[in-house]
């Protein structure tokens, strides 16, 4: 427990100082250097650390809506590690190369595609690694999460099956969403504490307090769902993970979408401004929800995989 907590607080300290939310609107290669060369966060999979350590980092990167391609690269590293790869592991581990994921098979919108050295591509049940491709940056609504259109120059090489990598991506997105959603509620509560109307803090109005409580419940439930799925990666990768992973992605994305929307409302006018961070969380929430499988489909997938 203390190891995980130490990891969390170290990452939080670094990101708070060097990569606050506002800094995510633009590329800053120094952030990636700090996360990799300085902190070694990309080497967690190759060192055989449980995926829950990666998830703890992702909760922190979620809090600041990290722009750097940590999620894509670390999921790729974990998937490749599990498949026994030694070709790309060293470069991914030291951060000298990054990866992008196209595990839903779509090349027209690939997160972190531009700048990636390799692409993990799902072709049906096959997992391919692609080295030769071009990536044309797109203009995303969520400017903290770059997307690109990818064209393959040469076909990829089959590494194994794609389902485990996809499950890892679900779990990673769940952890990231949980961190972001927790942060959104914190920011909202802080606003309700400070902002006064009718001569009293907004947070003293029961109508608003109850909404905050409901958001807390949603985020706690999402946290539990992500926590369970993260543990399943090590504890039960064959039986439990295929159910828990898509479920966690759905539950956390729904919670993130809900709190991010409510956050704008509870912030009032200031929440509608470009200057405020609320819209950045809102756009990330919807991007996460709309990409990599919609919640309704994922819940049904989990239901079916559970043999219901």
């Amino acid at each position, binding site marked *: 427990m203390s190891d995980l907590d130490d990891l969390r607080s170290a990452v939080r300290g670094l990101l708070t100082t060097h990569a606050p939310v506002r800094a995510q609107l633009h590329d800053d290669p120094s952030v990636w250097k700090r996360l990799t060369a300085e902190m070694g966060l990309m080497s967690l999979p190759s060192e055989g650390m449980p995926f829950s350590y990666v998830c703890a980092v992702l909760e922190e990167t979620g809090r600041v809506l990290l722009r750097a391609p940590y999620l894509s690269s670390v999921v790729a590293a974990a998937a490749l590690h599990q498949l026994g790869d030694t070709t790309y592991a060293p470069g991914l581990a030291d951060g000298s190369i990054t990866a992008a994921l196209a595990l839903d098979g779509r090349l027209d919108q690939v997160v972190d595609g531009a700048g990636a050295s390799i692409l993990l591509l799902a072709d049906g049940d096959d997992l391919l690694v692609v080295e030769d491709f071009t990536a044309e940056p797109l203009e995303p609504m969520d400017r903290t999460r770059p997307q690109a259109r990818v064209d393959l120059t040469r076909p990829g090489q089959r590494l194994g099956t794609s389902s485990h990598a996809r499950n890892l991506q679900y779990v990673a997105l769940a952890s990231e969403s949980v961190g972001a959603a927790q942060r959104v509620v914190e920011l909202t509560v802080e606003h*309700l504490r400070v902002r006064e109307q009718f001569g009293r803090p907004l947070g003293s109005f029961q109508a608003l*307090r109850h909404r905050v*409580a409901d958001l*807390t419940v949603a985020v*706690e*439930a999402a946290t539990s769902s992500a926590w369970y799925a993260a543990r399943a990666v090590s504890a039960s990768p064959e039986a439990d993970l295929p159910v828990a992973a898509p479920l966690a992605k759905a539950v956390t994305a729904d919670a993130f979408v809900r709190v991010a929307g409510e956050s704008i409302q509870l912030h009032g006018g200031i929440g509608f401004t470009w200057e405020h961070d609320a819209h950045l969380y809102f756009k990330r929430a919807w991007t996460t929800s709309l990409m990599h499988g919609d919640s309704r489909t994922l819940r*049904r997938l989990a239901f079916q995989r559970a043999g219901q």
Partner: protein
Amino acid sequence: MTFRKEVRTWLAEHLVGEFAPLVGTGGPGREHEHVELRTAWEQELGRGGWIGLGWPTDVGGRGASIEDQVTFHEEYAKAGGPARIGHMGEQLAGPTIIAFGTQEHKDRFLPGILAGTELWCQGYSEPGAGSDLAAVRTRAELRAGAWHVSGQKVWTSLAHLADWCFVIARTDPGSVRHRGLSFLLVPMDQPGVEVRPIVQLTGTSEFNEVFFDDAVTPAENVVGEPGDGWRVAMGLLAFERGISTLGQQVGFTREYDEVLALARSNGTFEAFEERLVDTWAGLQVLKHQALRTLDSDASSSTGVEANVNKLLWAPWHQKLGELAMAVAGPPSTLVSPEGLSPLQNLFLFTRSDTIYGGSSEVQRNVIAERHWKLPKDRP
């Protein structure tokens, strides 16, 4: 033998014969079922050493780990063990006495709970003190070595069976709110105590009104200092980590499976597929939430886990009842001569899930105040 196997084996060997009719009985909405046999079953559990699993060994418990307690509740629920008629003693009165009582209290009261021979009820709510528990008006006065208790308690489940009631009463005349209350242990079998059943919207009764009219209990039957009863009553909440929650969820799973099977058999699965899937997903989240709450390695304790859990399971359970009726369709509006079906009972009784044990509104207030420290909604 693993602990799980020990539990399973014992239940397989004992929940049979004379106790066989108890499988799946009792519980919220069904507390009126087989009360005498369930009382005997409580004593059977006591003989088997299954009461007070988590209590310390020096007071007669087994000092079982949280994992083992969870295992017991899971296996008990899977075996269809009847709702415990002694749970007020084991889970509320006993732990309070262990934490705040004197050695004499422990010697006098704990053995009866552990043996299942003395049953308890909880005298908290009053007609004027529901969500606002600190507004209790039941009063007690110390005269000639005894507390004299007068007042009315309400929603007292199992009061008609209980031997003892733990009562929050005002012992400092003129005191207000949380001050001046005491935590008294009052015998139920005496002329000054009258129990009247409340007929619920299910048509059945498991809650009661309890009238105290100069009921007496010896002076030493106060837990904690006189006037310190609020702290004693609330202290219990701090220990509550929802160990029984996973057992409760085994019951939820059984209910859900029944609804799903009904939808598959009566041709409504496609029409209700999305709600059935969402409800299943909600049940998984309840399990994940309970496991995370119980896992000491999981980080970021909020201190309001019990409140969050209640706000998750109670509305979920209520929606399951509504879904059950929707799946059953028009026939679900008819009552058979045998009375309400289990699913009809689920539908009706779950209206109380969001009210008892702290209404959803109170839970939300607690989260806002205790976790987020938002200022109170008072001028």
